[in-house]
């Protein structure tokens, strides 16, 4: 059984939480006491029907306002897959929380209301999912029950979205007509839309192929922690603990350590459960090397003939996430990239990108909350990075305000083409 992480996005009233409630409910992932408490809360508020959105809107303020403020993570499993849902807020005010939820997703669902079609919000969400390089996108046309399950409505919205999508870099788009409230095409196939022959939403989630989404070519191993047991038995043991974020490392392989540039061999890949012959993305292991070279946290192990860029000058797309103060040229921040934290200064704000029109404003002099733009940064120490489009782990970074310790931005190296 493997794991699929997906994020849901949609406008405030598109029924996103209802869709998740429906997925959980129809796949029997909701427990009786959870349903009871939702039914009680619904009754208390005088709702006409049980509001499944209450399953995910767990915070007092969310229930009061009937909106989603922050990402809620939900879990369910079918016999073939385990799913982690990041239910993200649709409200523009909480864009940064949506970006948070989408950053680890294999798949994104953008929900639109069949009655109103594509809104500025749905375009924005699709753009953000694309910017974060979420590999698979589902356009879920919801509330089909309110347009008499009309195929023309579905077709129009689909065509309109496909025109918009030509400006993005989508590799995989699936469009599904459904009704979250009534349950059509969510888990069970609808008998009201015989004209639709594709998968139900759950069927698609179960079968979407995600094995190729990872980079298995470029070996990237950011050193996270140096293991030096102070024990007789392991007197000379020196291992480099970390998580593989790219490529397949094998015992006996040649390895190059950055920033030193020394080459050596991988002599062992250790885990608590015993040594392994190879390690691949997301495995958390301890690597031992043939030579005693100086390596510490923040360094990176790669292959001699396949290295990341080593640079102090970075061009990147930035999503600004701070309420207090915007990003300007001259701003100084801490930058955390892989396991390395260094100082960075904003050399230039090249442009602000209007995420609704995709227009570039080259006269912008600052980025405010939830705004996106392209910047040039200069870092104190070199980063070992790849284009975000090639590797999300070695291409993504965060900026931290040194005074408040707040995370103020998410950054993606490269990505000049939307």
């Amino acid at each position, binding site marked *: *059984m*493997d*794991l699929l992480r997906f994020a849901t996005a949609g406008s405030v009233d598109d029924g996103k939480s209802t869709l998740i409630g429906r997925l959980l409910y129809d796949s029997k992932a909701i*427990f*009786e006491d959870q349903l009871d*408490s939702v039914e009680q*809360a619904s009754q208390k508020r005088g709702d006409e029907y049980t509001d499944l959105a209450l399953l*995910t809107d*767990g*915070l*007092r*303020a969310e*229930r009061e306002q009937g909106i989603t403020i*922050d990402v*809620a*993570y*939900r879990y369910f499993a079918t016999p073939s*897959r*385990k799913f*982690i849902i990041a239910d993200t807020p649709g409200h523009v005010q909480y864009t*940064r*929380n949506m*970006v*948070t939820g989408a*950053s*680890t997703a294999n798949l994104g669902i953008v929900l639109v209301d069949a009655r109103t079609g594509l809104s500025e919000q749905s375009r924005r969400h699709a753009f953000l999912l694309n910017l974060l390089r979420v590999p698979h996108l589902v356009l879920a046309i919801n509330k089909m029950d309110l347009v008499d399950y009309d195929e023309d409505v579905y077709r129009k919205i689909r065509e309109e979205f496909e025109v918009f999508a030509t400006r993005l870099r989508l590799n995989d788009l699936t469009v599904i007509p459904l009704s979250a409230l009534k349950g059509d095409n969510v888990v069970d196939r609808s008998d009201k839309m015989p004209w639709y022959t594709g998968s139900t939403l759950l069927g698609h989630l179960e079968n979407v192929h995600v*094995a190729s989404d990872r980079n*298995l070519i470029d070996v990237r191993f950011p050193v*996270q*922690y140096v*293991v030096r*047991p*102070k*024990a007789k*038995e*392991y007197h000379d*043991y020196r*291992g480099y*603990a970390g*998580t593989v974020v790219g490529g397949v490392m094998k015992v006996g392989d040649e390895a190059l350590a950055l920033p030193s540039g020394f080459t050596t061999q991988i002599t062992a890949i*250790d*885990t*608590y*459960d015993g040594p*392994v012959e190879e390690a*691949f993305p*997301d*495995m*958390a292991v301890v690597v031992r090397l043939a030579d005693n070279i100086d390596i510490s*946290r923040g360094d990176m192990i790669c292959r001699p003939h396949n290295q990341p860029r080593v640079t102090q000058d970075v061009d990147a797309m930035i999503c600004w*996430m701070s309420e207090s103060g915007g990003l300007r040229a001259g701003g100084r921040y*801490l930058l*955390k*990239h892989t396991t390395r934290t260094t100082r960075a200064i904003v050399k230039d704000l090249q442009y602000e990108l209007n995420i609704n029109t995709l227009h570039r404003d080259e006269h912008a002099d600052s980025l405010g909350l939830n705004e996106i733009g392209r910047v040039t940064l200069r870092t104190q120490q070199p980063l070992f990075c790849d284009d975000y489009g090639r590797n*999300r*782990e070695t291409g*993504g970074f965060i900026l931290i305000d040194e005074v408040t*310790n*707040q*995370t103020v931005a998410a950054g993606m190296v490269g990505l000049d083409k939307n």
Partner: protein
Amino acid sequence: MATTTHDYRLSQLDALEAEGIHVIREAAAERERPALLFSGGKDSCVLLHLAVKAFWPAKVPFPVLHVDTGHNFPEVIEFRDRLVEQFGLRLEVGSVEQAIADGRVHERPGQGRNRLQTQVLLDSIQKGNFDALFGGARRDEEKARAKERVFSFRDEFSQWDPKGQRPELWNLYNTRVHPGEHMRVFPLSNWTELDIWDYVAREKIELPSIYFAHVRKVFERDGMLLADSDVIDRREEETVFEETVRYRTVGDMSCTGAVESSAASVEDVIAEVAVSRVTERGATRADDRTSEAAMEDRKREGYF
């Protein structure tokens, strides 16, 4: 680490394990004084197991902190001490009994000691000067927890601000705090109850005996079976009877309910959990039942 497949994919349990280890290493690398909050419950046993794995062959480089209400099941305390011995851990205990004796907290009759734990936890954090605390909380446990970050910032009053959480992207965690503030770190955020049990089975992790079927004297209150013990006053109409039960969560004897069950092994429990229609907290925790936002309110006060 289980078998690898030829297409280089991790099974979901391996993916969760790797994520947990990554989180633990990150906190240990970036924070000065971490500690692991250990209750003896199944989640903290899994958490400890991951911590042992994360630093092997070196020892776990931080202490284990137990906030002892004095109302714990004796089986759990015995188990805790044995584990500390086995892994060569450093144990710190924050005692609610002691805090009551010192007049730092006050017991209200009829209320459990669960709320008092918060104050004692905060005192222990201050005393140990801890700047990161690992907890075994899972997002599937409760709706407020579903909203919480893996690295959850707590201000100098240990408060959680659900509306002002730091964005948390990719696997890049912002672990920075000022003196007096700290991080709560939840490596098991993405695990479900079933994942925990599957992992316990696979790794052969030892748990306190109360998780498995045993005969116990119980009485019924609010639809829950509570253990008959000297930490709880029975009402007139509540009669004691013997029942074969097990616990789905480990909390105080005063507020943790048992479920009727004959599941005597991990495999039996998994079979039961897989078909259960009630969450573990809904079934067995009186402290979460108080109001719709009980957990959120307690987290704001500094509770885990």
